[in-house]
């Protein structure tokens, strides 16, 4: 086992462990902060797989913005710093089962698709190579995604406007 593999393993354990803590924590704020650790560890994994661009974007967008958004929403909606502030719903077991099924499904897809492939020697995740791939092989999915995002944006504006002046 090389050093890189060892570090990858440690990061993966941190990611999964903090994800579990995030789900089981009794305090909502702690859940959000454990999520930061999970996302950071996943960014580290990306880095080890030479996907530098994805790693930094992961930190910039998810840790820097999405988690802040989550915390902001928590703060606005209720006093969320106390003990037992995370609600336990009856759906939690269903959610857990769904989560496990999704993990198995995605993992199987990954193993079936990429087993035995090695990334040694070529740097797949630089900004240049990702940009090149996006605008040559993946133009159509890219444009469709931007359309979906635009629709979501318009939807958000419509929802937030309705009620004040229809």
């Amino acid at each position: 086992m090389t050093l890189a593999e060892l570090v990858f393993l440690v990061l993966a354990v941190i990611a999964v462990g903090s994800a579990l803590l995030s789900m089981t924590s009794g305090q909502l704020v702690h859940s959000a902060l454990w999520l930061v650790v999970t996302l950071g560890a996943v960014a580290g994994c990306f880095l080890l797989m030479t996907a530098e661009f994805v790693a930094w974007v992961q930190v910039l967008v998810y840790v820097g913005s999405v988690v802040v958004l989550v915390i902001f929403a928590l703060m606005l909606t209720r006093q969320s710093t106390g003990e037992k502030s995370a609600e336990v719903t009856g759906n939690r077991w269903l959610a857990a089962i769904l989560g496990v099924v999704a993990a198995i499904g995605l993992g199987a897809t990954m193993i079936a698709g990429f087993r035995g492939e090695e990334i040694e020697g070529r740097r797949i995740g630089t900004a240049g190579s990702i940009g090149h791939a996006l605008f040559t092989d993946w133009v159509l999915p890219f444009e469709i995604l931007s359309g979906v995002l635009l629709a979501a944006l318009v939807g958000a504006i419509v929802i937030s406007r309705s009620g004040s002046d229809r």
Partner: protein
Amino acid sequence: MSELVDAVLRCLLVLGAFLTLPLLVGQMEHKAMAHMQSRVGPMAAGGFHGWAQLVADGVKFVQKESIVPGAADRKVFELAPAVALVPYLVALLAIPLGPFFGQGNLVGQDLDLGLFFVLAAMSVGVLGTLMGGLGSGNKYSYIGGMRVAAQLMSYELPMVLAAASVAMLAGTLSLIGIAEAWEPWWLLAQLPGLVVFFVAGLAELQRPPFDAPLADAELVMGPLTEYGGMRFAMFLLAEYAGIVVLAGLTTVLFLGGWAGPWSDQLGWVWTLLKIVLVSFLVIWARVAYPRLREDQVNSLAWKVLVPLALAQIAFTTVLVVW
């Protein structure tokens, strides 16, 4: 072996810069602000014009008792200052100072994606303030934390957009590459981007006039209300380190980094001079402008800076394609 020595030496240099430059900016703030307000500022500590004031402050902070409020969320409260401080140290690793007497570029680590790396590190730093606001168990801290979160969400976007515009023009995300591609006419072509980047950076650091989260007249000290001693000192150091990182980034992206006479030999001097100049502007802004109200903070971001940054990107696109 020499590679290892080189890497360790670079890390030590960055650590040295991290421990001295923020203090320099802090001292400059003391003195410059004082003279702008017809005062003289610290004069006693150290003898000559109070040069050792911040050292004396540091000694005082170390002696203070470390207090955690009873209502606080202990772990979050204790961890927050470190989360605020460390990312700026990491960010400083990637900011280049330029050629050093023909010995190559003075930089902690030249990264292929330096720009994204620094922006990502800066965006983590502000989580520390947020954690302080949430973990203190104090209503003023809590409201301050909410304002921090609102401010961050508004200003992250224009900042990244303005930086992206320069990267597009330079055709690279490496900070050294951007500074080397820089040409004097960019000062004009990227002026809106420069303004947007600088203003959004000020807001991200919660420096006046964007210090609504700390507003001492309304919120005592916002997220930092319950902090004292070393932990408070770490937050202060994070603030000044943030100024250094912002000034360094502005210099490298928009002001040409080490561009100047004899830049092969003295490039690093030019970069440092420009960093000091931008830091002075940060301090000047604190003295010159009154604090923005919370709604003004957010409308400035969404109604002025974001459209301006988007227009700048559109203009840069035209330049690049043409």
